[in-house]
């Protein structure tokens, strides 16, 4: 039946709470209000305010409180209201959530889920549209997951709550209310598996979260230009599925990585580096990246300029040296000009 990612996430939380009373859901406005995006709608009414509750307005407090609750044997799922508002919790996340298991040789674990509504495309004002996944992906000890489909939203969140390790669960805001047919109670692929969303022969588009629909749209549009593009949905950034990704690129010989975040030192850089490292001899062209600009998120009037859209993806595909000529943009002359 048709449902939205927001409803799927809500159902995943409800099913997880029903399945395991150790699961607690808390954060800012998640109780009576049901969250500013209504992801926790109805949970307090159904499970009571000891299982789903509002906290004082302090993100380091919320994450640190979750760490303590986990030490007592509970399984907290916390909501950061928006991406940039998780930054106050950065020390708790990087120095404790990510490291506690290791520092105690597994005597203590932190099976918590930190839900982060992220990225743009919703006309939000400043600080409400950051793509912060790279900060977490670069922090050993964290798992970083981001769904692109309604099915995955449900399944990956259930998976994240069951997982023995801390999971930063990145929710693409702009996909919250896109609806699709989904059978919520089923599980999809486990953590660590990327999925080929669309098979193709000529080139591989690698994307995650909010960029997956863009990649699929671009692949559709590319058919007119005679390109048959494969689309890989990364799903879990950490752990990363080298196997699926490299298999695809070795088959197609060309690759474009798409991410909404500012490009410099982002997850797309890691993917591009890994792919060329592992598929070098299969590549007919450099692995190209299409990403957000290296500027603060320009919400909302100019976000369309910032966001990697179908056209920008197709431009990149066009630069995959189908004629096996070097990319003119990178000829010394061109650079000198810039």
């Amino acid at each position: 039946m048709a449902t939205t990612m927001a409803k799927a996430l809500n159902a995943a939380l409800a099913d997880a709470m029903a399945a395991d009373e150790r699961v607690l859901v808390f954060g800012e406005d998640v109780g009576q209000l049901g969250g500013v995006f209504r992801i926790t709608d109805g949970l307090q009414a159904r499970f009571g305010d000891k299982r789903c509750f509002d906290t004082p307005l302090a993100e380091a407090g919320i994450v640190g409180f979750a760490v303590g609750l986990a030490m007592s044997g509970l399984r907290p799922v916390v909501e950061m209201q928006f991406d940039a508002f998780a930054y106050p919790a950065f020390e708790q996340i990087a120095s404790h959530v990510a490291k506690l298991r290791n520092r105690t040789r597994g005597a203590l674990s932190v099976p918590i889920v930190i839900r982060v509504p992220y990225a743009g495309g919703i006309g939000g004002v400043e600080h409400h549209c950051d793509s912060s996944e790279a900060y977490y992906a670069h922090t050993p000890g964290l798992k970083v997951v981001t769904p692109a489909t309604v099915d995955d939203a449900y399944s990956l969140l259930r998976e994240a709550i069951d997982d023995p390790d801390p999971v930063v669960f990145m929710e693409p805001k702009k996909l919250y209310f896109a609806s699709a047919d989904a059978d919520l109670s089923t599980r999809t692929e486990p953590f660590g598996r990327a999925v080929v969303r669309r098979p193709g022969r000529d080139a591989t588009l690698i994307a995650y979260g909010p960029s997956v629909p863009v990649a699929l749209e671009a692949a559709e549009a590319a058919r007119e230009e005679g390109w048959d593009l494969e689309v890989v949905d990364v799903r879990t950034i950490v752990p990363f599925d080298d196997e699926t990704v490299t298999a695809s690129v070795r088959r197609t010989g060309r690759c474009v990585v798409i991410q909404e975040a500012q490009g410099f030192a982002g997850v797309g850089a890691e993917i591009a580096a890994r792919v060329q490292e592992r598929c070098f001899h299969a590549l007919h062209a450099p692995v190209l990246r299409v990403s957000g600009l290296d500027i603060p998120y320009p919400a909302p009037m100019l976000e369309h300029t910032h966001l990697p859209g179908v056209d920008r993806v197709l431009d990149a595909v066009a630069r995959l040296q189908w004629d096996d000529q070097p990319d003119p943009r990178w000829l010394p002359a061109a650079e000198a000009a810039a």
Partner: protein
Amino acid sequence: MTTTPRAVRRASPRARRRPANPADPARPLLPDAEPVSLLDPTGTPLPARTDYPEPAVDLLRELYRRMVVGRRFDIQATALTKQGRLAVYPSSRGQEACQVGAMLAVRDTDWVFPTYRESMALVSRGLDPIEVLTLLRGDWHCGYDPAARRTAPQCTPLATQCVHAAGLAYGEAHQGRDTVALAFIGDGATSEGDFHEGINFAAVFKAPVVYFVQNNRYAISVPLSRQTAAPSLAYKGVGYGVPSEQVDGNDPVAVLAVLTRAVEHARAGNGPFLVEAHTYRMEPHTNADDATRYRDGAEVDAWRDRDPIVRLEKYLRDRGELDDDAVAAVAAEAEAYAADVRERMNAQPTVDPLSLFDHVYAQPTPQLIEQREQIRAELAAAEQEGEA
């Protein structure tokens, strides 16, 4: 549910005396156990229970005028969201005494650190309403010139401005200027670590900052009881060695009196001062919020009876300082102000995509120059297609 501030409920005549122990170091720092109030909800002056001098009457008339204009502006801004002219607007209707009173307590040379809630305060300070609404309108910058207006950009990351205010105030004093910084903050944001760090820095460095907490009893949907177990937020001051006061935030005369003294305290070199105003947000958190999910109409109605504008108008009329003509004149001014905002907001703002690269750094990096070229090329291509 009763809606008067807890401290007021608890108050008894005896409760109003300061702790009697003269040697207790906390004594001079503790707030009065009951919020300072000079007018009762009907605007009738209360028997002076504090030593706060009443502000000059012409100042009170100006306060009235700006509150009326401010509220009209606020209502207009909310209306503009319905017409899609604003991306979002956080209303401060009901908090006029705080929004305007604070701006009358500071000088033009003082610095103000507003949050997203303070649009009314900023227009009361004389900033161009269109500039104030620029960000909420969907542009990527704050609209006004913060340096020229000595007004920081409206701050969204909660409580972070508390630290900036400490640094700015200390820096001004360090350079021999007698600037005071007034930092707005909400009740919910006092739970953030940056409130703690900011007021503590100000206290340790004796920086001239007034921390003004508008306790409107909610952080979006979360009630005050989830932010603190303290008798009142003003009691946080003593833990930093900062004197504090609580005030009835819907009593314009009291708010102006208390903030005026707080600003004097800071300017005189005595360090920061903490003021908590007990008030109420009459509108939802923003136009996007549905307040019926977390509070009932009765609560809102009870606060309607404490309307700060009604209160001040009644008081000034009783004193013969305000008559029908004056009230009508102010109302007319407010209408004209709103009409001007409405009209100027009709023009769709034009934004140049290439301007995105201008202020990330003083000079764009080679990487940004490359990216700007790419966007320029895309725009050119799009134009050609348009023509073709």
